């Protein structure tokens, strides 16, 4: 049974957690309302962006200047590109005008997106630099104020420098608004502008060291290592995305060339087949219309591909919506094979008896879809379970290393139980649920290894299993070789992060590959249509050799 002191500590932490949760809920609601307002504005924004002055203002928000000359030059280039493509496909004037109008409507969004991308990349670089710089600066004097001041000298003018100045000024005023302390509130100014786990962890460490003191070198080293890896991963992903975008661009250009080549070749073949009159496939309105749709589609594909380059690099990775994730988690936890199987048999029961009479008395081919449908119904529980489990596992691979990092930092000053309780509030919903269960098990049977190894046992993740075993040994051995064990724990975390990175990269790669295949799908459709149409025209012209008078 846990001691009274421990119980009091848990109670105090639970109360703190509840306060924090209610604060976070308020912030979340506020953000949701802001998001709704942004969405309302979005439709009007697209129209207003057509005005060059509004576009310049929007670009200015990101801290860049978009001159009128550059805007005019971009418009001229777009017009030339539209005219060029129109001439290549021998489009009628009204088709070219239509394509140009669509391109002109997309252009402001495209420009804005480009600056947004640059802004996000700059923010990412600044966030990484901040974590590195503030931790190194803090080592000299162990004072946040001095560290912020040192950092100011290193940063160029921009959002980060402004926020750091604000934070210094806030400390200078010496007035607090809440009971969290002046340092915490000052650093909140930076965290609000750069909402990121790395910055939050670094700030947390600085505040706790300045307020409570203690050994922090190892924790700072861990944070720096983590930050370096995060920066490397971020830049790697950016480079990968750029490469994919380049591939999509080449894919679009090749699609246009291939499609035009098909039309010109058909025209050429048509002229060989038909010597009586001049054959021109471009004159047919159906070819004009499909070419027009094809070009506009490619325009949107290019815009979509360019949009995927824009990311909030500071945001932590969440693969699916929280509700969906939670429902998947609940499904896996509550899953009972026999019960689910009975349900599946019940679903498939009305279809299976129909297959034989249909085969005997009706069209035999209907049996194939019926058979497939019955198979799907029969195994729907397994399919559903597999999908739900996979989505939770993917999210666990992303969230667990982040939680482990928090835990490793907390373990420097707390015991395992308190560290887990403290780390609970900063994880995602699935880990929160699992941690709740873990804490209950720890309270009931603190000395049994099962209390730890049953953590996420439904998801069969070997890395989590070995980490939990290590946590158990830390809890059991007390503080003797904690540092060494934490190092091992962090090595495990690094391995998991590498795996998580692989999963995340695969996910992004899949998304980008999907876009890469859009132009190919479009060119396949357009080519098959043009070829079929051209062949029909040529076959009809075979009878045109003039015989007799």
């Amino acid at each position, binding site marked *: 049974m846990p001691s009274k002191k421990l119980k009091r500590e848990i109670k105090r932490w639970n109360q703190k957690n509840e306060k924090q949760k209610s604060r976070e809920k308020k912030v979340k609601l506020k953000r949701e309302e802001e998001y709704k307002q942004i969405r309302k504005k979005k439709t009007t924004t697209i129209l207003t962006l057509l005005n060059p002055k509004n576009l310049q203002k929007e670009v200015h928000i990101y801290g860049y200047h978009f001159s009128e000359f550059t805007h005019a030059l971009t418009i001229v280039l777009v017009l030339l590109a539209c005219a060029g493509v129109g001439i290549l496909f021998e489009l009628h004037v009204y088709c070219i005008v239509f394509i140009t109008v669509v391109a002109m409507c997309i252009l402001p969004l495209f420009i804005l997106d480009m600056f947004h991308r640059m802004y996000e990349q700059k923010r990412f670089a600044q966030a990484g630099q901040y974590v590195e710089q503030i931790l190194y600066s803090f080592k000299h004097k162990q004072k946040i104020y001095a560290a912020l001041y040192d950092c100011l000298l290193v940063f160029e003018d921009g959002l980060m420098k402004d926020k750091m100045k604000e934070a210094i000024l806030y400390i200078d005023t010496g007035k607090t608004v809440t009971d969290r302390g002046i340092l915490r509130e000052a650093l909140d100014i930076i965290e609000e502008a750069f909402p990121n786990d790395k910055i939050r962890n670094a700030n947390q460490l600085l505040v706790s060291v300045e307020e409570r003191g203690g050994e922090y070198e190892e924790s700072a080293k861990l944070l720096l290592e983590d930050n370096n890896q995060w920066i490397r991963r971020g830049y790697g992903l950016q480079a990968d995305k750029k490469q994919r975008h380049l591939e999509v661009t080449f894919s679009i250009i090749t699609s246009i060339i291939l499609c035009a*080549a098909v039309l010109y070749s058909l025209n050429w073949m048509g002229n060989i087949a038909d010597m009586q009159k001049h054959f021109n496939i471009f004159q047919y309105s159906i070819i004009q219309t499909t070419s027009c749709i094809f070009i506009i589609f490619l325009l949107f594909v290019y815009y979509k591909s360019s949009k995927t380059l824009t990311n909030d690099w500071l945001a932590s990775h969440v693969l699916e919506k929280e509700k969906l994730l939670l429902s998947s988690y609940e499904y896996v936890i509550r899953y009972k094979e026999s019960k689910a199987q009975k349900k599946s048999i019940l679903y498939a029961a009305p279809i299976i008896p129909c297959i034989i009479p249909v085969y005997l008395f009706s069209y035999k081919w209907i049996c194939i879809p019926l058979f497939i449908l019955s198979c799907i119904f029969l195994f729907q529980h397994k399919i559903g379970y597999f999908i739900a489990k996979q989505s939770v596992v993917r999210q666990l691979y992303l969230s667990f290393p982040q939680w482990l990092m928090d835990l490793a930092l907390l373990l420097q000053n707390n015991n395992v139980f308190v560290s887990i309780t403290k780390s609970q509030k900063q994880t995602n919903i699935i880990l929160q649920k699992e941690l709740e269960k873990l804490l209950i098990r720890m309270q009931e049977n603190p000395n049994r290894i099962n209390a730890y190894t049953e953590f996420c046992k439904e998801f069969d993740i070997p890395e989590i299993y070995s980490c939990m075993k290590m946590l158990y040994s830390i809890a059991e051995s007390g503080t003797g070789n904690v540092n060494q064990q934490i190092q091992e724990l962090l090595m495990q975390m690094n391995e998991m992060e590498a795996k998580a990175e692989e999963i995340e990269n695969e996910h992004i790669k899949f998304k980008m590959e999907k876009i890469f295949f859009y132009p*190919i799908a479009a060119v396949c459709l357009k*080519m098959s249509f043009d070829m079929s149409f051209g062949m029909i025209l040529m076959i009809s012209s075979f009878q045109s*050799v*003039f*015989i007799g008078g």
Partner: protein
Amino acid sequence: MDQILKAFTGLVLLFVNFFLCISVVIACEKRVDADEFKSFVVSELENSNFNDNVISACKNQAQENGYELVIDKAVYDQENDMILANVKLNYTYVIPLLGLNETKMVQGVAR
């Protein structure tokens, strides 16, 4: 870039195959057309009893259709009238993708 090569190689091959097939079909159709036109000329010559006006009209029509028509007067009867003519029709056999551009001939005899 590897992806682009992989994805578009299939499409380009499809494109080349399609045009190769179409070229062969067109070339065969040209052969059939030429044969049909030659038969038409033979029957015209026979029906008109080798009339010079009809011969020149046939030659004009052949030229309009892109053929080269050669009519060799071959055998004459005792009254020095033509009773047999060799009709040679030259047409082009083109398969552009294979670089084939030959002039072929169909011939027949009008009696």
